[in-house]
């Protein structure tokens, strides 16, 4: 049964055509992945499907009725729900209150609605999802995975027909992903159609029944999951073949640049020692929450330590200031929050941390700043019309390149990167990996935290695995497999 049909849907933003005559059908009871690089038109298509944006040409039929642009609330009453990567909930309210807060009088048949009486119904909804969260728990204290379940439960309260999940796995641990997929399959079997948007191909192949690939606003093809594979999907997405493996020519390792000994903080990690040498990319693997980001920030001097020592080029580092002037930069995990100033230009983002290099006795030299920024933009192939464009207007991959590029103005020796390619499309991912490799090959060093198993196995020369705040082992990248990393990360014996 066809639930939703897009016919010849086109959409322009200004003069840019973001969707070009897209024909798409979604069946009830299927999980349908929509795949494409950043800027391929996925999010616009999803907004049109949900009825939040109306197409400039073409029609959308939901349940046989032509749908109209409206609000999220209007979409919800039609049985369409959107689940975001970061659930949009009310942290001060309880689970139960979050689920029922928008209950309308007519939905309860005109009878007085008592929020406090909804405990049983809430338990019932949550148990349909296999969630053990208590209806009276405050949402602020739940994990992202539990919050997603609350979000889905709120959608299930009504007659749910179409669930749209937008990169839901980005901040989940593997077992939470497994649970989410179980819930998605359960809903599918109850006849709910699910649109899944994601970047991780192995997840998409695991969960979807059908996969639609978009490129440059055009629908390239819709395939059945059983008839395709990763290589084909990548080819369709980027329109050409690429070599997914980063060649790691065995590096010439030089002297030690960074040496960390017995570093501990009060809560997140303890007694970590490592050495990073010229020419090396060192990977730091482990589960989400194993303390890797906190460790990286402490090495950079951004967090306080309780004991241990960080030596850079033979000098001890205590503060961010010493780290930067000693030749070390950090590209943080959350580029929107810590890595970039999204409301400021690419130029300012690149100049801001380097003013003492570009300015003359404290006076800024704007032309030099522009020259520097232009150079970084062309070196990293950042797609911008002009360096004065706002950083927030760029795609994820380009933002990440700016976040990395601002450090390349300086002659750094060590770059610490935290999840360098999260939320970045495949083409950019490869280029960022190549950049890191080039940086290391020029006699510098990279310390990289990654939860993307493929990235962790292919990019670094050596992998250290953390578990619950401690180093649990080291694997040379030649001998590393997904299994060997997971063993160390989870502490399961071989």
């Amino acid at each position, binding site marked *: 049964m066809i639930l939703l049909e897009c016919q010849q849907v086109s959409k322009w933003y200004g003069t840019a055509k973001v969707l070009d005559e897209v024909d798409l059908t979604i069946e009830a009871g299927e999980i349908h992945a929509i795949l494409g690089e950043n800027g391929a038109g996925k999010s616009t298509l999803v907004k049109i499907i949900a009825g939040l944006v109306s197409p400039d040409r073409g029609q959308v039929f939901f349940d046989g009725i032509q749908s109209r642009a409206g609000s999220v609330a209007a979409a919800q009453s039609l049985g369409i729900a959107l689940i975001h990567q970061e659930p*949009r909930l009310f942290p001060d309210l309880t689970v139960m209150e979050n689920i029922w807060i928008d209950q309308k009088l007519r939905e309860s048949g005109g009878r007085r609605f008592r929020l406090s009486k909804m405990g049983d119904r809430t338990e019932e909804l949550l148990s349909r999802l296999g969630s053990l969260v208590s209806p009276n728990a405050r949402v602020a204290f739940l994990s992202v995975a539990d919050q997603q379940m609350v979000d889905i439960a709120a959608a299930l309260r009504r007659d749910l027909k179409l669930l749209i999940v937008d990169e839901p796995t980005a901040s989940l641990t593997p077992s939470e992903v497994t649970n989410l997929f179980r819930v998605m399959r359960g809903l599918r079997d109850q006849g709910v159609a699910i649109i899944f948007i994601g970047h991780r191909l192995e997840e998409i192949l695991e969960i979807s029944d059908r996969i639609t690939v978009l490129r440059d606003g055009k629908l390239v093809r819709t395939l059945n999951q059983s008839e395709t594979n990763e290589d084909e999907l990548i080819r369709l997405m980027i329109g050409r073949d690429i070599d997914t493996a980063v060649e790691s020519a065995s590096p010439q390792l030089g002297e030690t640049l960074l040496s960390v000994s017995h570093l501990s903080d009060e809560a997140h990690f303890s007694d970590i020692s490592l050495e990073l040498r010229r020419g090396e990319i060192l990977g730091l693997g482990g589960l989400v929450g194993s303390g890797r980001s906190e460790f990286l920030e402490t090495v950079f001097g951004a967090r306080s330590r309780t004991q241990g020592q960080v030596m850079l080029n033979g000098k001890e580092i205590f503060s961010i200031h010493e780290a930067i002037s000693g030749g070390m930069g950090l590209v943080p995990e959350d580029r929107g929050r810590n890595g970039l100033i999204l409301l400021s230009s690419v130029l300012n983002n690149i100049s801001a941390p380097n003013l003492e290099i570009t300015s003359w006795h404290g006076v800024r030299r704007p032309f030099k700043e522009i020259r520097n920024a232009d150079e970084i933009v062309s070196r990293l192939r950042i797609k911008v019309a002009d360096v004065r464009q706002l950083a927030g207007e760029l795609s994820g991959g380009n933002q990440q390149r700016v976040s990395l590029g601002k450090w390349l103005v300086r002659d750094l020796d060590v770059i610490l990167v935290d999840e360098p390619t999260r939320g970045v499309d495949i083409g950019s991912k490869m280029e960022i990996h190549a950049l890191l490799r080039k940086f290391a090959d020029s006699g510098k060093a990279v310390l990289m935290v990654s939860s993307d198993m493929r990235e962790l196995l292919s990019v670094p020369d050596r992998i250290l695995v953390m578990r619950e705040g401690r180093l649990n082992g080291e694997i040379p990248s030649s001998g590393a497999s997904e299994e060997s990393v997971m063993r160390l990360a989870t502490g399961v014996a071989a």
Partner: protein
Amino acid sequence: MNPLTVTSTWRSLGRLREAGIAGVVVLLIVIFGSLNPLFLDRDNLSSIVVSVGILMILAIGQMLVIITRNIDLSVGSVLGLSAMVMGMVGRELPEMPTYLLILIAMLVGALAGAVNGILVAVARVPSIIATLGTLAIFRGLTFLVSNNVQVDPEDVADEMQDLASSGPLGIPWLVIFAAIVVVLAWWFTTRTMSGKRLYAIGSNPEAAEMRGLNVLGMTFGVFVLMGALAGLGGAMYVARFATVNPADAGLGFELAVISAVVIGGTNIFGGSGTVIGTVLGTMLVGILSNGLTVVGVSGFWQRFASGAIILIAIIADSFVRKRIERRQSNQTMARVR
């Protein structure tokens, strides 16, 4: 970790805080009483009750505003304006019944609140800026309508003045009004859907829009309600002092009102706050200001003390909050798959 224990820790924290404020209130009474026995004198106690009553009416309104992640700095000026208009109407029409005069004051307040509400909810001016502007505007209007002539005790009917001193069972009507406001607010915040939605709006305004809650309407409504309560406060001000001077009626009231709300544990960033906490916070502020006068502390040190106590309350609160949150996050972190 079991989410149930999380909730109960949080709830008991709320109770702990309320018990803490109550403890400070008792402590203050003991200290002031032992420093100067006149503090416990019947006349002084009833004076405290009456001034706490006026403060309470405004603090309840302010709490609702702050829960929605807004603030109303203009409350003192609205109180002054509505007291002035009501006093002048009473002077011109001495035959007008008291309840009508009170309604006029509340209407003037509600209109002023509607101006704030339009600025914040419709024009989307940040409330701290919008009400900072109207604080000055309403004070100016008070001068304009009164022609800088004050309302004197002989202009205020005896029935009006009696509201602050007598009533059924010897409880002044003013106190009864405040109690009614408190009970209604308690019912609204704990027993109604609209009350819960007020918390939702303050907890995550973006999500509230997404879920189709009427953010605009509720924000406007809460400012109108605040205005009407400030108007009622204005009427009670007239009943108590029988004088309205355009230069000082309600001047600086916003400081006492906001202190009371924040000391009572309402999160200044919206999303949480209880009526019980606000009641206790108001008592603390009222007793402190009266007690400092009675034991002979100078005006300067009184202001110093009330400023310091807000800071202490906020610092203590965020300290406890952070500790609890850190404990929670450590426990979540330890829960690896």
